[in-house]
Each structure stands twice: as C-alpha cells, then as structure tokens.
C-alpha cells in the first residue's frame, strides 16, 4: 500500500512569527519498497531546510497540517490568518495547498474504489440502466419535464411530424380544398377589410408573408427558451449572494475603507490647526476587501440542497 505523507512548514497563526524564515515546502512520497523519494522544495532567500518523512501513517501528517481553528462563520480576523507572510511565501503556500488538494482527491478516489470492491456490492443493479447515456437534465423548453433519451426521441418525432404536417397542410391540403381564412370563403382582402386593418396588408406578397411569419415564430421561440434558461441557471445560484459568493461588508458599506475617528487627536491639535478632513483607514471587518464571506454557500455561489429541496419537499 503506497503511503503519502506531506510535511510543509508555514507560519500558522498560533506560532510566533519568524520574519526571516525561509519557506520550505517538501513533498515526500514513498512508494512501497521502492523508497523512491521525490523531494520538492523551494526556498525564498537563505538556507533551504529539507525535511523529509516517510512515515507510514498519513494520519499524523494531516492532523497537524489542517488548522484546528477552522470555522465556517467568518470573523473579522480570519482573513488576517496569513497576514505575516510575504508575497513569495503566499504564492508558494498556494501552490503547495493546491498540490495537496489534488493528491487528497486522488486518495479519495482510491479509497472509493476500495470501498466499492469491499462492501457496496449489488445494492442497486437497477440503477445501472439509469447510468446509461444521458444524465437527467431539465428541459430548456418551458413546461416540459426532465429530458431523458426517451423524451428526446419523442421530441424529435413530434417536432418532425408537426413540421411535415404543417407543410402538407399549407402546401397541399389548403389549396386543394380552397380553404380561405375567413368564414364562408372570404378572401384575404375581404378579411383585412372586415377587420378594419390597414389595406396595404392585403397587398403583401405571399413569400414575404411566409418569411415574416416564420421569422417571428423562430425569434420569439428563441427568446422564450433563453428566458427559461436564465431562470433555470438562476435557480442554481445561492439566493443570498446572487451567485457571487460574497456579501457586502456592512462596516464600510462595501467600499473597503472606514473613517478613522480618533477623538483624542482632534482635541490636542484644536488650537493650532483648523478642522482636518477625516482620514480613512482600512476597514477592520473585511480587511479592505469590501466584501465578506457568504456563510450560506461558503463562497461557492451555488445553491446547495437543503431540506426544502424539491426531491424532499414537492409541495411548497
């Protein structure tokens, strides 16, 4: 069984800040008996320190790397967690963490495979047919239910038959039966006149008329479908932050700066200086970002299934 262990040194908020520290990020992976060591380190300025571990249990490695002060509700100080780091260190940290995520997901995949092999056998053979080609998608045509391969075929059939029928009707049946628009066989011109519409409408060329009718139909259909699509995409957005993942900081009204009101300084210099324009300082709430985390979607911007999901709650 291959083991994976990571050790990375970074300034955690609890440890005392080391201003001259060099960033060293090491990944060591040891595969079985190969003892293949892949060490990757990056130093900023001075001596790089190499720390390599080939411990078998990955549990210890993770337990001291995952910060224990993780909390889903943000406070004003959470963005300040890594304030001590320099820019280069921050970039290195970002890179190392992204690597970590990738490796962890790979582990989850392998664990899932093991789980599948060991336990979850034969629970649902029926669901295999469902996992065929198309996953269930909501239809982009309004009022239609979910789209599956079956309904898609039905849609093709119905649409084609409708088109054929209309072409047959317009091209063959109507002229043969001499169907006129109005009641009792009134012609087009009489119809226009009886409806009191402007008379030039009766002079419209048939080709122009059919082209305009078709174009209007297509354009309005596209418009409806687009509106429906937008509505469905909106349904997937987090309702609190409108899909942005962030809410406006109330302290600075989303500007990022607050007035620094310091009564003592005003009093002391009142005699010799006139009133000064109040200075602004960086907002302590959002650290100047102007926005704070949306606690509902945890900055993903997406609507997540809650107990009011239509699967559980179809009548609301």
């Amino acid at each position, binding site marked *: 069984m291959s083991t994976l262990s990571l050790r990375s040194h970074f300034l955690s908020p609890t440890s005392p800040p080391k201003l001259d520290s060099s960033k060293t990020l090491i990944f060591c992976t040891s595969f079985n008996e190969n003892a293949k060591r892949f060490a990757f380190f990056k130093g900023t300025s001075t001596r790089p320190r190499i720390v390599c571990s080939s411990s078998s249990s990955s549990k210890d490695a993770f337990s001291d790397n995952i910060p224990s002060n993780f909390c889903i509700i943000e406070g004003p100080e959470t963005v300040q967690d890594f304030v001590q780091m320099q820019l280069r260190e921050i970039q290195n940290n970002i890179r190392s963490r992204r690597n970590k995520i990738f490796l962890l997901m790979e582990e989850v995949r392998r664990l899932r495979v093991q789980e599948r092999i060991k336990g979850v056998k034969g629970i649902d053979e029926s669901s295999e047919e469902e996992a065929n080609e198309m996953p269930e998608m909501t239809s982009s045509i309004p009022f239609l239910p979910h789209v599956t391969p079956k309904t898609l075929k039905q849609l093709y059939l119905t649409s084609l038959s409708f088109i054929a029928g209309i072409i047959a009707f317009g091209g063959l049946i109507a002229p043969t039966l001499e169907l006129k628009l109005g009641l009792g066989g009134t012609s087009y011109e009489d119809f226009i006149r009886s409806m009191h519409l402007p008379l030039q409408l009766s002079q419209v060329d048939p080709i122009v008329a059919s082209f305009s009718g078709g174009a209007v139909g297509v354009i309005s259909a596209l418009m409806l479908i687009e509106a429906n699509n937008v509505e469905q995409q909106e349904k997937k957005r987090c309702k609190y932050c409108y899909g942005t993942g962030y809410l*406006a900081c109330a302290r600075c009204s989303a500007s990022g700066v607050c007035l620094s009101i310091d009564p003592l300084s005003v009093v002391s210099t009142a005699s010799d200086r006139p009133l000064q324009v109040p200075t602004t300082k960086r907002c302590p709430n959002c650290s100047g970002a102007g926005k704070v985390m949306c606690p509902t979607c945890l900055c993903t911007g997406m609507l997540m299934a809650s107990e009011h999901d239509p699967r559980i709650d179809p009548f609301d």
Partner: protein
Amino acid sequence: MSAVLLWVVCPVENAQPLLSLVPRNGRRGRSCKLSSTGVSAACSSAVAHPSRSSEERVYEVVLKQAALVREQRGERALDLKKPIESDDMADWNLLNEAYQRCGEVCAEYAKTFYLGTLLMTPERRRAVWAIYVWCRRTDELVDGPNASHITPKALERWDKRLNDLFQGRPYDMFDAALSDTVAKYPVDIQPFKDMIEGMRLDLRKSRYENFDELYLYCYYVAGTVGLMSVPVMGIAPESKASTETVYNAALALGIANQLTNILRDVGEDARRGRIYLPQEELARAGLSDDDIFRGKVTDKWRNFMKGQIKRARKFFDEAEKGVGELNSASRWPVWASLLLYRQILDAIEANDYNNFTKRAYVGKAKKLVSLPVAYGRALMGASDLAKLVVR
C-alpha cells in the same frame, strides 16, 4: 399533560405578583432563582410541580420582554441606548438593497409567508423580512447543507455577530438590515439569543422525553419568533389588554405553529432519524420509535394523533385571544397565517392521520378563501371577539 394545564389555567391576574418578583434587568440566571418561589406561590391552586417546568421559565422570558418594552417606550425619546452612527447616510443605498434581498430570500423559501407579508405595511414588511432572513440563516447553520461543519465555535461567532449588530455594528448586509430593524422597533435581543440556544439544542437532541422538553424546544425555535415580531406588529393603542397577554398570545401562536409542523412532518423527520413527539406520551399510547420508523397507520396511532392535534388546537385558541390586540394594520396578516396554519391540522385529519407518507397541505383554493375570512376577523376588535361563542 399536567404541565400544560398549569400553563393554560394560570391566568393573567397572577402576572401582577410575578412581576414584582422578576427583576427588571437582571440576568436570566438570577431572575430564575428569585421567581421560582413566586410562581409556585401564585399558581399553588394548580398542580404543584416540584421542579420548575419549561412553561414557567418561558413565561418569565415573556414577562421580561413585556417589561422591557414598557421601559424602552420611555427611553426611546432620549435614545440613550443606541450609539451614534457616523455613516448612516452612506449606508442608505446598501440598506435598501439589503432589504430588497431579504424580501427575495423570503419569497424564495417561504412563499405563503411572503404572500402574507404583502398584507402588511411596507415598513413592517421589510422588518419582518429582515427578521426572517436572520432566523433562516441561523436555522441553516444546523439544518442546512453545511451543518456537518458546524462547531460550537461557529455558533459562538454567530452569537457574537448578533451582539454586535444589536449594538449597531453589523457584519454583512443582511446583518445590517436586521440592525436597522432593531433600531427602529423595540425588539429585544433575548429571543434571538434563545433561538441560537435552540440551535445548540438541536445539535445534541433527537428525542424528547416529555412534553416539557418539547415545549422548551418549540419555544426556542418558534416561540421566539412570536416574541420577536410583536414589537414590529405593534400593539393597538386602544387595546386594554396587558402587554403580557399579547406576548403570551404571540408565544402560543409560535408554539402552535411549531407543533403543527412537527405533526405534519413526522415521516420526514423520522427519515432523518429525528422524532419530536414526546417519548413518554408515545409509550403511554403503546407506541414506540419503531412504529414510527415503520410508518404504518394503526388505530393506536390515530388515537395518539387525535390527542396531539387537540393540544395543538388549544394553543391556537390561546393565540386567538391576543391577535385582536395588535395594531389594526397588522391584524389581517396575523389572522391569515393563523387560519392557514390551523387548516393544516384539518388536512392531517383528512389524510386519515397518515403523516408518514402523505404531506398535509392546504390547497390554493382554501388558502384564498381564508384571506377574506381573516380580513373579516381582523376588522373586529378584541372586545367583539369576546362576545362570540368560543369553540
């Protein structure tokens, strides 16, 4: 059941001696000890409970709320409590947008409730939306998709945010909307804190031994909402009833709503491993948790449900006594919500008490019919209501 009788029978006249014992601004811990003797003395005619029941503790909170409202009415003129905010004008746009979003969230997640708020005045509507959004966000912390990441520390932080927003320092835009609301209306922080406490309770508990525990839970998650909204709805100036009565009625409405929810969602909650019905009462009816998980409607279940529905209806009756005392503009929406929710109990009965697989819901037609009925009842004041024959 005896605890319920204590609550229902104990009339308002006993509130006077109780008031003298409850200190005005004392911490809840201190006031609890002081008034324990007072409550048992005043209600000694009713069944004597050795330890204080939830009803008594909740009643104290109600009294404190009423007392605070009276105090705040005097202080409002001087406006001593609220700190001076320097950037009010700059926040106005943000505030408007925040209220707007609160309305959208409300419309999205509670359609019928949203329609009810449209019956209120615009100012009250916005205030109720802000309160709704805060309550919903709090509820989602323990019941929503991120509930697996919730820690006591997160709830502490949420509590701190609540304190800050009550002092005029909101964290994000939705907090800002609530902060503005509590600045405009005399809303107290205690019901909000109690709601967070209820969330903490929900994390630990999935079974309730007796009605006393269930009552406390219902207070935490729904009774508090009633207490939060009374200052927004406002009490009619010509009302002769005491503030306590109105708060009690609001509390009863909240409890009734929550009991209705519980009775409607038995199956759904069971699927998530939660049973809110009191274990003692289930045992007395000869039912067990397994019967609920199995989901079969038996005669024992029908009898049990009949008793539960009867108790919920009693709370609705309690609530009806106070609706007439509210501000005339607020009576219609409150009546409408009361009547609508009451009909859910009828729907459960119509489903032959099958709340395992069938969801009892009130059809749109019935909902629409309730509106003019509610309007009619809202037009009558409290004095006329007393003349009607009570069911």
